[in-house]
Each structure stands twice: as structure tokens, then as C-alpha cells.
């Protein structure tokens, strides 16, 4: 099975992945902190609300004008004057109200003001219905009516009567608690003709024009528009509007009347809530604080509001760090890190939709709770989910009764910024720690693995392919496990070296030790041979002497390799032509082996090498002896030489039995012989090719044997490669 090389370095780097748990923990921790901060913010905000509520406690006057004392407020009847930002141009066109279209109320059938004789069955919205809204700007209450009327009937030019045409009736209670009736009854489209009716009589003659109630009547496709304003000074806490439709210009019978409330009765009159300047003044002082403040009455209608939630500078906001020069790290942080962080983090934004921006009514569980008497707070997400708003409500007590509530609102942007800053710092530090940690681990692993690799290479190089000790392992002086390992290896190799040395010297020592007893036997035999012997004894003597001669030769052979090694150690190298030596050798072999045939394939130019020619000749002797011995009768032994850029190569090729595959590399080892037993006429210890190898290695060369096959012929080829003389 194939396995990926998975080094120590890779493993350690993988392990260092656990470092990533640290930023996660940090992240969790910061989130936890944020939770606490939020709780703190909640407390603070309730505190803010309470502070304001305290200022408003037990000040019934502030709530007098309002509908605060009503048990219920009815939408459509009880009006709310929305604060208007810009002046309204009283021209009858309604474009300047468009901003507030959400607050426009429609009045139709259900707002019909009926008497006993009124028949509502024929009512159609086309005959009369209107849209209406009131607002407050400066010291005026503004109102508009977009009336749908299929027939607009103006007051006749000569008519004194104010109510025999389409008209608007306004009933209000003034600041002096007087109930007054006003009628707007135009002879034509244009500036409004406003009248104050006499309290006791509808008589038009008693009606006085009311110049303070200004506005414009404009005819439209559907009917007409009335845009008007009333000074707040004229207005108490209650107001009602009613529009009466007259459809017949001849009979001028009054048709349907639709109104915000029944204005004929003092008690039925609806209230109007004008955002209280008094309260606003009080809370304005608080408005410089960091949040948006609302004061609502018990009907959850907004009495006053101050502060902008977007611009609110929370106490949580940190002062901007600026002014200092951007260092390299700052650059890096800004360009690289922060964009990365904010892929995960959300940057608090002031650009969110706040549906309560200009609300008239506030709703929410916390407000209900506050109005029930207990402070409360609530978190809510803006509709676009870009910000979280914290809202705290605190009741306002007057005479042990909750008359309203203070609501303080704040975004969590401050905390978020704080959290983000903390996370940024945390991430920076963690990144640095992790980078350094990983780098350190990587370097450590590299160091360890390089030491292990070095040790491995040294171990591999200590012993050559023949199992011979090439060199000692350098022991490491480091006092750790790898150092120990290196020292153990070194001691193993040196012990192995001693053993190998012992084995290598075995034959030489054996021959040395054998030589003395052999000399004893030999000299004894020779002494004996000098005695007069009978014929029988002479035969045995001859056999004994032949045996001792063979034994002697064996002993000499055994030590030959050792002697050669010693000779080679002190041998001088000279530059000589390899081809000369080879040619000379082959000439010699022709004499030495008259039965054998030799073929020479030599290039012309001299092949110069550095070495000992007599040893090359010795090498040739060994190879040729082998080749002659193993070659089939009447086949030639081919000796070829060639050279390439760096090496001289010569080969001796004989026809004969092939080498067994597994022996190819081993035949050059000491004491390896492939001769069949029957061939052992001469003693053979398998030293010859070992000597050839020693000589080749002395010349920094290599000797290899391989089988060859050509057509029918096959045999063995021994190739010696020796580096050329360095020029």
C-alpha cells in the first residue's frame, strides 16, 4: 500500500493546529464579556430613564392638557399632532405632507355623525369622505383635509348662512376651558373664510370672522382640499373636526356629516395631543446625554422626544485613537487583518432603519410593564437587522398613579465597537502568538528531523553494500534522545567494525597460526625423506609431501588478500596507459595458457589512469584465470576496453556457464567460490575475485559481473570501470 511520506515536521505542524482553539476560546470569552456589558448597559439605561422620570414625578400640570386622564383614547377621535420639521405652505396642495403620509387617517362611513333622522343607507364614499391629519410646527397646529365630494357647493354669494353649503366645523376647548365652535364656509376656493360661532346661537349674523384660523381651500378632481393652521394659543386639550356635505345647490339641504368626533357635545369632543413643549424642555437637558428619550402618556402616546439614536454617543464609545503616524504594523493591520476580521465580525453601523423615528405611539412589553408600574427593558432588532436597540422604560408617578413613562433608547453599537476592538486586539495577539508558535514548532521539527535524517544518512553511509564498515559515525554531543541514539549507533557500528575486522583478519590470522604447525610437519617430513626409506614408505612420503604442499598453498592464498590490502595501503600511484598493461597481460596469457584463445578489442589512443600497473596486472591475472577456467573449450575470451568522458572501462568476456542471479553481486566477496567440487583440482578459497575487487576499489573503480547472451552463445562478462586520470 502506498503511504504518503508524513514527516515529523508535517505532524508537528498538524498538531500546532490545536493552537486554533485559543482564538476560539478568546472569541467565546469576549462574547461572554459582551453579555455582561449588555447587562451593564441595561442597568445604566434604566438608570437614565429613572433619572428623567424622577424629574417628572408629581408634576400633574405637565400632564393636565393632555388626555392623560382619559381612560381610553380612540384612534381617529383623539388626535395626535405630529411634530412637523419644515414649515407648511398653506396653499391647498398637500405635497408638504407627503412625508407624514403614514399618519394620515381616513374618515368615511364609520365616522358619520348621525342624528335620529339620518339615513345612512345611501351613503357612498364618493359623496363624502376625507383624509385628515394634524401636525405641529412652531406654535401652530396644522391640519389638512383631503375631501372626496362629488359635488362641491360653495356658500352662495348673497347668503349669510354659513352652513347651507359644504363646510368644515371645528369644535374646541380653549385654554380657558371655553367650548367654542368655528365654521369654515367659503364662497369660493381660496383663502379660508373662518368664523367663530356664537356660543348660544347658530345665527350667522352673530358669527364673527376668525382671522387667526388661516388656510386655503383648493378644489381638486375628487372634491377639495383644506389646509389650515390654528395658533396653539387658541387650543386647549380637546378638538374635533366635522365636514358637512351639501349636494343640492338649490334646496341646500344638509347631507352627511363626517367628523373626527361629535363636536356638538362638549363631552364627546376628541382630544388632541400636542407634543408638550414643557416636558420637552425638561428632557432636552437630558437629551445631551447619549440616548434617545421619550416621554409617553399612559396611552403610550409620545408627549416628548429628544435625542437622536443614530448620533448618540454612548458612554461605551471609545475615544478615537488618531493622530499618530501609521507604522508598518498599523498598515498591515488596516490593509490585511481588519478586512479579514470583519468577514467574521459585524461593524456597528449608524445606517439602520429606525421605525420609531417619528412614532406617535410607542408599543412594547417593556412600556406596558412600565405603565403598569415596574421598570423594564427590552432588546429589539431594527427591521433591517443592522443594529440592536436597547430600550428601557420607567414609570412616572403622580399621586400614586402611573401617568406615563420615560423610555430611554440606545443602540448597542458602543458595546459592539468595544467588543470589536477587544476582538481585534485579541486576534492580533493570537495571530502573533500562533505564527510564532507555529514557526517555533516548525523550526524545532525541522531541526529534529534534520538531525534524524543526518543520523540516518551517516548510518547508511557507515556500511557499504558489502557490509563493510566504511567509516565511523560521528557521535553527537547533544544530551538528548537523538544524541543518545547517535551514540548508540556509533557504538554499534564500531562494535560491528571490530567484529568485521575480526572476520576479515580471520583467514590471515588462521594462516599465520597454521603456518607454524605446517612448518613442523613439513620440516619433519623433509627430515624423514632424507632417511633411507623402503619403497612402501616412499609412496606415503610422497603423498604426505604433496598434501603438505597443497596445505601450504592454501595457507598462502588465505593470507593473500590481507597482504594485498597492506600492500595497497602503501602502494604509490603512477600515471600509466591502461591499454599497454592490458595488451602486455594478454600477450603473457597467450604463453601461459597455450590452449586458450584470446581476442583483444582495444581503441587506438592511450587510456591514461592513475594507479599501480602491477596491481592492474594482478587483477587481470585473477579475472583471466577465472575466465579460462570457466570458458567452454575452443571459445575465445574477449578482452575489450573503451573510455568515455570520465571513465576507462574494460571487460573480460568468456563463453560458458552463466552466473546464478543471486550470486552476481556476491562473487566479489571474500571466500565465495562457485566452482563445482569436481573442478577443485587446485585449492580455491574464493579469494581471487575478492582481490580483483580490492584492486578495482584501490583505483576508485568498480567491478561487476553480468551474464550475456548472443545468438546461441552465452556466458559471463566481468566489467571493470576505473576513473580516468584527472587532467
Amino acid at each position, binding site marked *: 500500500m502506498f503511504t504518503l511520506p508524513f514527516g515529523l515536521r508535517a505532524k508537528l505542524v498538524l498538531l500546532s493546529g490545536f493552537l486554533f482553539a485559543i482564538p476560539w476560546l478568546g472569541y467565546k470569552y469576549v462574547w461572554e464579556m459582551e453579555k455582561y456589558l449588555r447587562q451593564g448597559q441595561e442597568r445604566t439605561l434604566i438608570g437614565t430613564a429613572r433619572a428623567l422620570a424622577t424629574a417628572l414625578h408629581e408634576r400633574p400640570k405637565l400632564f393636565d392638557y393632555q388626555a392623560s386622564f382619559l381612560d381610553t383614547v380612540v384612534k381617529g377621535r383623539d388626535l395626535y399632532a405630529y411634530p412637523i420639521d419644515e414649515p407648511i405652505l398653506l396653499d391647498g396642495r398637500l405635497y408638504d405632507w407627503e412625508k407624514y403620509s403614514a399618519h394620515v387617517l381616513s374618515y368615511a362611513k364609520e365616522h358619520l355623525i348621525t342624528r335620529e333622522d339620518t339615513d345612512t343607507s345611501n351613503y357612498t364614499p364618493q359623496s363624502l369622505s376625507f383624509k385628515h391629519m394634524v401636525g405641529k410646527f412652531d406654535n401652530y397646529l396644522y391640519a389638512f383635509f383631503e375631501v372626496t365630494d362629488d359635488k362641491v357647493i360653495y356658500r352662495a354669494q348673497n347668503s349669510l348662512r354659513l352652513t347651507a353649503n359644504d363646510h368644515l366645523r371645528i369644535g374646541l376647548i380653549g385654554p380657558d376651558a371655553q367650548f367654542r365652535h368655528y365654521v369654515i364656509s367659503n364662497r369660493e376656493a381660496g383663502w379660508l373664510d373662518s368664523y367663530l360661532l356664537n356660543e348660544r346661537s347658530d345665527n350667522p349674523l352673530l358669527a364673527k370672522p376668525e382671522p387667526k384660523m388661516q388656510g386655503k381651500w383648493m378644489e381638486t378632481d375628487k372634491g377639495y382640499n383644506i389646509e389650515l393652521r390654528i395658533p396653539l394659543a387658541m387650543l386647549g386639550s380637546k378638538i374635533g373636526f366635522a365636514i358637512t356635505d351639501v349636494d343640492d345647490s338649490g334646496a341646500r339641504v344638509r347631507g352627511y356629516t363626517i367628523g373626527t368626533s361629535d363636536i356638538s357635545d362638549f363631552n364627546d369632543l376628541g382630544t388632541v395631543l400636542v407634543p408638550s413643549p414643557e416636558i420637552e424642555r425638561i428632557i432636552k437637558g437630558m437629551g445631551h446625554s447619549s440616548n434617545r428619550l421619550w416621554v409617553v402618556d399612559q396611552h403610550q402616546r409620545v408627549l416628548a422626544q429628544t435625542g437622536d439614536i443614530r448620533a448618540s454617543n454612548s458612554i461605551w464609545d471609545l475615544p478615537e485613537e488618531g493622530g499618530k503616524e501609521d507604522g508598518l504594523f498599523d498598515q498591515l493591520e488596516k490593509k490585511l487583518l481588519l478586512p479579514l476580521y470583519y468577514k467574521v465580525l459585524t461593524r456597528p453601523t449608524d445606517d439602520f432603519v429606525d421605525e420609531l423615528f417619528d412614532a406617535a405611539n410607542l408599543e412594547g412589553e417593556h412600556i406596558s410593564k412600565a405603565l403598569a408600574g415596574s421598570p423594564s427593558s427590552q432588546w429589539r432588532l431594527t427591521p433591517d437587522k443592522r443594529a440592536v436597540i436597547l430600550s428601557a422604560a420607567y414609570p412616572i408617578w403622580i399621586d400614586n398613579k402611573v401617568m406615563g413613562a420615560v423610555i430611554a433608547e440606545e443602540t448597542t453599537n458602543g458595546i459592539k465597537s468595544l467588543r470589536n476592538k477587544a476582538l481585534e486586539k485579541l486576534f492580533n495577539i493570537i495571530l502573533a502568538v500562533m505564527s510564532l508558535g507555529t514557526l517555533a514548532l516548525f523550526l524545532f521539527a525541522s531541526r529534529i528531523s534534520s538531525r534524524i535524517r543526518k543520523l540516518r544518512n551517516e548510518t547508511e553511509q557507515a556500511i557499504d553494500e558489502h557490509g563493510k564498515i566504511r567509516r565511523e559515525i560521528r557521535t553527537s554531543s547533544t544530551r538528548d534522545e537523538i544524541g543518545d541514539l547517535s551514540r548508540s549507533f556509533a557504538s554499534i557500528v564500531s562494535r560491528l567494525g571490530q567484529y568485521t575486522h575480526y572476520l576479515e583478519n580471520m583467514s590471515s590470522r588462521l594462516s*599465520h597460526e597454521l*603456518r*607454524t604447525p*605446517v*612448518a*613442523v610437519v*613439513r*620440516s*619433519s617430513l*623433509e*627430515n624423514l625423506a*632424507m632417511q633411507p626409506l623402503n619403497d612402501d614408505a616412499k609412496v606415503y612420503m610422497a603423498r604426505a609431501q604433496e598434501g603438505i604442499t597443497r596445505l*601450504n598453498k592454501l*595457507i*598462502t*592464498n588465505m*593470507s*593473500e588478500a*590481507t*597482504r*594485498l590490502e*597492506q*600492500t595497497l595501503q*602503501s602502494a604509490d600511484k603512477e600515471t600509466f596507459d591502461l591499454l*599497454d*598493461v*592490458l595488451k*602486455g*597481460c*594478454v*600477450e*603473457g*596469457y597467450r*604463453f*601461459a595458457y597455450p590452449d586458450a584463445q584470446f581476442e583483444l578489442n582495444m581503441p587506438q589512443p592511450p587510456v591514461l589512469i592513475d594507479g599501480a*600497473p*602491477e596491481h*592492474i*596486472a*594482478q587483477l*587481470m*591475472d585473477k579475472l583471466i584465470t577465472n575466465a579460462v577456467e570457466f570458458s567452454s573449450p575452443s571459445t575465445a575470451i574477449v578482452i575489450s576496453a573503451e573510455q568515455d568522458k570520465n571513465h576507462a572501462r574494460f571487460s573480460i568476456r568468456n563463453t560458458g556457464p552463466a552466473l546464478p542471479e543471486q550470486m552476481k553481486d556476491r562473487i566479489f566477496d571474500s571466500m565465495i567460490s562457485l566452482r563445482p567440487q569436481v573442478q577443485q583440482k587446485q585449492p580455491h578459497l574464493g579469494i581471487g575475485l575478492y582481490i580483483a575487487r580490492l584492486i578495482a576499489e584501490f583505483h576508485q573503480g568498480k567491478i561487476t559481473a553480468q551474464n550475456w547472451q548472443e545468438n546461441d552463445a552465452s556466458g559471463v562478462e566481468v566489467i571493470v570501470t576505473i576513473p580516468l586520470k584527472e587532467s
Partner: protein
Amino acid sequence: MSRNIAIVEDEAAIRENYADVLRKQGYEVSTFANRPQAMTAFANRLPDLAIIDIGLEDEIDGGFSLCQSLRAMSATLPIIFLTARDNDFDTVCGLRMGADDYLTKDISLPHLTARIAALFRRLDVMDKPSTPESLLKCGKLTIDTNRMTIHWGESQIEITVTEFWMVYSMARYAGHVKSREQLMQDANIVVDDSTITSHIKRIRKKFVQADPEFSCIDTVYGMGYRWNG
């Protein structure tokens, strides 16, 4: 008066075998097993020839120091190392001590006696003037076969018996290739090829020492050696 040969050898069997053979040849033989014994005897009377083993009982190199002491006592006393050690290092070492020959223990007794006879003969003719018929001249080379001396030009080459025989063998038929076997035969030794190579190397060195231009001994690879007159 028969000649006295001292054999210093710790192996009794070999010692006695050699002694027996030499006695049969008419020599007077005294045998010693170790260096102190031999030294005591030599202090009284020097032998005419000494055969010494290198390792003597517990002295690994006892033979070497014995040789040194003997050479100090007499410059002309023939000394032969006869040892089981056959490596180049010991050979060179022994010859440097002033030995006349260095033989390994696998030498046959006839070869040994031939050497001893040759050494004695050389001693005998040492005082007498050389006779012209015993001289062999070949270029700058002069060989006195009686005295077993070799001169290159005017300078004498210090040479062992074996080496003398080898040079003589080659120079006698200058220009002819002498195979290793022939050289061994002429030098009365039986050794392996690489020992012959070592001998030839040493001979060359000795001539080169006397004359750096010397190049008379040719190696004929695969065949043997040749003296180029």
C-alpha cells in the same frame, strides 16, 4: 673446523628439525628458545650464522631486537629471519634491521640450506680478490657471483640473498623475460606472485636509490620481468 649456526626459535619441533638437517650437513648447531638465552650465549661467542624467528615466546618482536644486537656486535655476521609472518611490513622491517635474508616458514629445507651455503660461501670469498671469471657485467651493472655483491656503476647495492639471485637470474640473460616461476626457482624460494612483485619492487627501489635514472627492470605484464641492459 665446522661452522657454528645459531637457531633462535621458540617452537621446539621446528627448531630441532632445522637443527637436525643442518647438523647432517656438517654444521655445528646451537639452539635457543628465547632471546635472553641466545644473548647470553652470543656474549660468550658469536656464531657464524644466525637463524632467528621474530616472535620469541612472550616477546612479539624479540627477533628484531636480537637482530639489532647481533648486528651491533658484528657487521658481517649473516643473519636470516625465518618466520611465520609474511606481510610486507615485517619483511621491510626485518631487512632494515640488517638481516641478510627474510624467509617464511613455508620454505623447504633444501632451499634453506642452499641459502646458508651461499651465505657461507660469500663469507669465505670476502677477503679474497675477485676473480674475473666470477664477474658478470651488463652496462653499469657488475655482479660478483662469488662474493654475491652487486655494483651499479661504482656504488654497491646492499642486497639480500634472495634479491641477489633474482637480479642475477634476470641479468644473466638480459633482454629475456623471466617469468615469476623462473625467478622463484633461481632464487630458491616458493612464494606467491605478489611476494615476487614485492621483491622486484624492493630491488628497483634499491637501484633507484643509487641512481634515480635507473630503469633496467621492465615489468612484462602477464609474463614476468626483464633486465634491459
